């Protein structure tokens, strides 16, 4: 690869570590930085470097395959190993790119929603959260995953609670998230404990080899797997472990919601893929049972119930939050097919949904910024008062429904085809039924925005008041991305295909069907 030879060697060798260390250190430094502008600039620069690192890594992975970095020079399996491969590279790029895109938007949005004194600290918490998410994805050590999971979670609780100056219910939402998030993380660490008991190692690759040697291991490993699935299930908002999500998304500052919606659940989903398919694998019967029965049922129920709940919400952010739970159901459904095409579809939707939901929340945040509205009823006439924002919302919304020529269609088409190939004709029906429910809850918002006249204040119709350009740019980037993927999804599908091949190696194809 030519681009790689142009890059400085330190970036190639230490890019993996920089990805995590840089935001972590910068986040700590925020504690002493008094000025918001400086804080924003540093955050932006750091995340930009992270994105470049992630991009470099993705290119390297395409070129060389699996990359391994020994933290502190200790050899694995004793030392902590950082691993980047076809599965993690796209997620790393997704997280860092979404962070950069959101940060454009942050400066006006944070000014409007967070108390002046806390703004520098806010960026600090954000950096630590990003570091945690990137760390979760990049690390090859099971206990290290827990540490980063908690690093990102704890900073997320703080970020959600920062929404209290805009909406005091944010405090309660953060508290609930803290309780459930900690339980989830603790379940996860119990699972890791059981795995350590069985294998005597914490390195993921080593763990996988030892488990293979033990032919799936004893009941200890089985219990460990169950704990890990439930712990991660809480983190990724698998139905019915999703209770924390609507509150957290609805009351956090807009910027936090956007970032969380497009990255946090995705990182947890990545971990589920990593644990279920590479550390454990499909040659173990219990893995097949849990995934193809337990997860399948929860995914289907989640897709339908969360979509129905979304229809009855009055607050747009809650509509979108419930929709997120339903979309997680789609991703889990693809995963539970245990086929290459199913996993490809899952992974495609993981990426697409990040763009789609990010775009929607960006638009909703801009509406709050201009008019202070989040309720569906208040969307009256937004097509006239904020035409550009509303158009971006519409494109992303159509993509969420799965209208052709948008990213959402690509992922639903892939998923439905995978379901049919797997022999689950009924699942095709569920996917499309859920799409129709999406049509209803997004259509309801669009209807109010397009067909009703703007509200009148003191007898005067509200005037056009478009969001500032710096807010429009990120939401249009995501909306256009959604259309680009809808027209040519080749690159996303290829990336997902490479990840899926890593998850189900050739000799494992057809296992558990």
């Amino acid at each position, binding site marked *: 690869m030519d681009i790689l030879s142009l890059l400085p060697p330190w970036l190639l060798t230490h890019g993996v570590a920089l990805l995590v260390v840089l935001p972590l250190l910068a986040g700590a430094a925020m504690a002493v930085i008094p000025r918001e502008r400086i804080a924003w600039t540093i955050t932006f620069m750091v995340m930009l470097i992270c994105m470049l690192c992630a991009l470099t890594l993705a290119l390297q992975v395409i070129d060389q395959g699996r990359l391994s970095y020994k933290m502190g020079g200790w050899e694995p399996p004793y030392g902590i190993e950082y691993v980047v491969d076809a599965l993690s590279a796209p997620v790393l790029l997704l997280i860092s790119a979404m962070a950069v895109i959101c940060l454009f938007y942050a400066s006006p949005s944070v000014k409007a929603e967070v108390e002046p004194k806390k703004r520098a600290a806010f960026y600090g918490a954000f950096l630590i959260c990003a570091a945690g998410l990137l760390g979760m994805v990049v690390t090859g050590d099971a206990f290290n995953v827990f540490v980063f999971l908690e690093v990102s979670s704890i900073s997320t609780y703080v970020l959600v609670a920062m929404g209290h100056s805009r909406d005091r219910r944010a405090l309660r939402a953060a508290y609930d998230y803290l309780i459930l998030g900690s339980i989830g993380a*603790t379940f996860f660490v119990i699972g890791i404990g059981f795995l350590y008991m069985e294998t005597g190692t914490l390195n993921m690759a080593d763990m996988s080899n030892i488990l293979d040697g033990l032919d799936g291991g004893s009941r200890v490993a089985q219990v460990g797997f169950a704990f890990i699935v439930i712990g991660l299930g809480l983190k990724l908002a698998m139905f019915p472990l999703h209770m924390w999500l609507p509150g957290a998304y609805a009351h956090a500052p807009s910027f936090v919601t956007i970032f969380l919606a497009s990255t946090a659940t995705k990182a947890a989903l990545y971990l589920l893929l990593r644990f279920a398919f590479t550390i454990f694998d499909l040659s173990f019967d219990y893995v097949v049972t849990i995934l193809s029965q337990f997860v399948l049922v929860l995914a289907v129920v989640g897709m339908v119930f969360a979509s129905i709940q979304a229809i009855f919400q009055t607050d747009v952010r809650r509509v979108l939050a419930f929709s997120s739970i339903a979309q997680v159901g789609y991703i889990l459904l693809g995963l539970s097919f245990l086929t290459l095409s199913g996993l490809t579809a899952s992974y495609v939707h993981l990426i697409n949904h990040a763009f789609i939901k990010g775009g929607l929340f960006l638009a909703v945040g801009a509406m709050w910024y201009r008019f202070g509205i989040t309720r569906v009823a208040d969307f009256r006439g937004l097509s006239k008062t904020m035409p550009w924002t509303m158009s971006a919302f519409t494109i992303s919304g159509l993509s969420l429904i799965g209208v052709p020529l948008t990213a959402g269609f690509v992922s639903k088409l892939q998923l439905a085809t995978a379901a049919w190939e797997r022999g689950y004709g009924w699942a095709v029906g569920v996917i499309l039924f859920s799409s129709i429910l999406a049509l209803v809850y997004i259509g309801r918002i669009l209807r109010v925005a397009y067909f009703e006249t703007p509200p009148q204040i003191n007898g005067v119709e509200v005037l056009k008041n478009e969001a500032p350009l710096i807010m429009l740019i990120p939401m249009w980037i995501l909306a256009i991305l959604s259309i680009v993927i809808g027209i040519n999804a080749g690159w996303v599908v290829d990336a997902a295909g490479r990840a899926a091949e890593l998850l189900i190696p050739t000799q494992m194809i057809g296992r558990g069907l």
Partner: protein
Amino acid sequence: MTDLFSSFNYGVIIILMMLGLYVVFAARNLIKRLVGLSVFQTSVFLFYISLGKVSGGQPPILVDSRGLEKTDHAASPIVQVAASDDIAAIHSLHHVEAVLYSNPLPHVLILTAIVVGVATLAIGLALTVRIREVYGSIEEDVIDRLDYQYNLEGAGE
């Protein structure tokens, strides 16, 4: 009977774990729920510490022949034993005249987990303080009622 006693600590861990979880879900007071969460997390710490125990193993502190603590780590042969009850493996280790230590790794891990737990608790308590300032109560029933009124008045903006 020996089985029962050898896994006695695991029994305690399970009881503590269930107790903690029950308190988290049953209590309606924000502080009490945090207490439950702490108990739950502590049971996991105990679980990890129990994992590290190797039957017959010494505390994992390096000493030289004179009984003094060694400082030169690189020179000493560290033998790590996985936390398994595989007696044969342990005996085979005796053949190379290694000292049998309990596994120190889980202890180190749990130090990290304790720090994480403390941080979580601190954030939880800080949130409770803020909730008390805003709502004037830490009883969930009261807060729910206030939020309900808040929603009805449409003061969400």
